[in-house]
């Protein structure tokens, strides 16, 4: 239990700790349950990882895939679902299945298959994080895998062309977002006041859609019309990930930190509302310059991201 755990995953940008949905899910869960993880993001000086990212290393065990990593953390007594009833645990499983079936195809499409997005944002970003010559091969491979997955699971007859499949998966994704929004309603997290596994998964899938600036953004526009989901992402980012800029909280100070987090949550909520009103006024002139500088500031972008929102 006191063994140090290391998580290797894709790095972040645009104010997010990671761009990869699965990596983000694991990081969010670790923050919610107070697990002391050292997060090592992939940079171009690393050797090629043999397993799929993200993976957790703890005392010679290497565990990949978010579901298995979360199970492992729960066995180490870092359980964010402690207060859930049996029925809520069942609901968690059902909503995660909904996310994977309905939202994930559209997410993959936006990142990896939509030509404009892929060539102008995704490919350069991922290629810059891997060592040459793997950077020439790996983004292409990930794109082909994404296309394969979408076509095999969603692309049977009567949908014969890729455009018809695209229309269907975006329709499904928008319906899924609407369902999530209805389920969340006005509460802070999906099951009351403390975040759980479901919140980690929803955050992992929604935050990249919400934050990353793509040229083709129909999913992001739809998400922005659901203010409670946007507020949900912003809350988690500001409460759980802004604190991590300086370092992660050790396991012993769990309860004190949780109380402190709750207090900061309330304070941040108020300041967020005020900031949002300010942001809305400023959004239009700010967008074009952000696009140009995004690629250059990629390394320092993560640090300056959260701080930008604090200073009016």
């Amino acid at each position, binding site marked *: 239990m006191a063994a140090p755990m290391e998580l290797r995953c894709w790095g972040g940008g645009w104010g997010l700790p990671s761009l990869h949905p699965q990596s983000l899910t694991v990081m969010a869960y670790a923050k919610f349950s107070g697990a002391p993880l050292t997060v090592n993001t992939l940079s171009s000086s690393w050797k090629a990882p043999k397993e799929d990212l993200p993976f957790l290393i703890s005392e010679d065990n290497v565990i990949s*895939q978010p579901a298995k990593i979360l199970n492992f953390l729960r066995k180490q007594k870092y359980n964010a679902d402690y207060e859930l009833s*049996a*029925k809520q*645990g*069942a*609901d968690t*499983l*059902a*909503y995660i*299945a*909904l996310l*994977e*079936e*309905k939202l994930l195809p559209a997410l993959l499409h936006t990142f990896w298959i939509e030509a404009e997005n892929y060539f102008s944002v995704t490919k350069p970003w991922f290629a810059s994080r891997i060592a040459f010559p793997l950077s020439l091969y790996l983004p292409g491979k990930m794109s082909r*895998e994404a296309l*394969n*997955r979408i076509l*095999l*699971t969603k692309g*049977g*007859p*009567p949908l014969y062309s890729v455009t018809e499949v695209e229309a269907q998966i975006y329709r499904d994704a928008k319906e899924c977002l609407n*369902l*999530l929004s*209805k*389920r969340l*309603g006005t509460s802070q997290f999906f099951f009351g006041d403390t975040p759980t596994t479901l919140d980690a998964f929803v955050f992992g899938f929604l935050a990249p859609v919400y934050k990353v600036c793509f040229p083709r953004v129909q999913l992001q526009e739809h998400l922005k019309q659901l203010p409670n989901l946007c507020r949900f992402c912003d809350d988690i980012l500001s409460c759980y990930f802004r604190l991590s800029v300086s370092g992660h909280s050790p396991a012993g100070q769990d309860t004190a930190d949780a109380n402190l987090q709750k207090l900061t949550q309330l304070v941040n909520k108020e300041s967020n509302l005020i900031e949002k009103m300010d942001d809305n006024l400023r959004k239009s002139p700010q967008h074009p310059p952000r696009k140009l500088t995004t690629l250059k500031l990629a390394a320092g972008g993560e640090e300056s991201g959260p701080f930008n929102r604090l200073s009016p």
Partner: protein
Amino acid sequence: AAEPWPENAALYQQLKDEQILLSDNASSLAVQAFLQMCNLPIQVVCRANAEYMSPSGKVPFIHVGNQVVSELGPIVQFVKAKGHCLSDGLDEVQKAEMKAYMELVNNMLLTAELYLQWCDDVTVEEITHPRYGSPYPWPLNHILSYQKQWEVRRKMKAIGWAGKTLEQVLEDVDQCCQALSQRLGTQPYFFNKQPTELDALVFGHLFTILTTQLITDELSEKVKNYSNLTAFCRRIEQQYFEGHDKDSSTIAARSAKRSLLR
């Protein structure tokens, strides 16, 4: 859509005794249960080439008037357009839950059934291959079986299930059944008093798993562990399938025949 439901509506599936497989049987039974719950008469017609007749390549499909609709999702929409809806009484949050649970069943139970049928070598050799191509002469029966197997294995690889072992798949089934059991609790149906399409879907899969004999009983044992799920299946069978003589005889006969032949 404005026409009333005709008397001669038909549901097409593969041959019941020799050809149909676990996953297709489950889907077909789910649609039959749903239509019974809506009180819409339907005749079950068995054809060897049902898969090829279907507009989406999947069974079952229904032929109503001059329209052909396949798979439970589109069939529910179609029936709703005709004015029969089981989930009207649910509020928005409950509808979201219902959709989520239906995805859970499709994601875990159906995929596990497909895995067991097509990726577990023993089952493939002894049950699936002989059954799938049985209406066709040699060598067509082998070719069709291998083609379908290759297709299903490709799909499994794309969604990441190819690397799973049988134990892991059975564990996933157990997790899914546990979730369903906890959600059902002591209620008669998933959304208390009225059955919905979720009840039909869960019934279709669980009943088929319980009454189909495979190489081992591990799959049905996982479901039998949860007594409220077996009671749920029995309740729906009694209420919706034993009222019609021909249907009850086919269900009882089917389970009897299943235990004799593989």
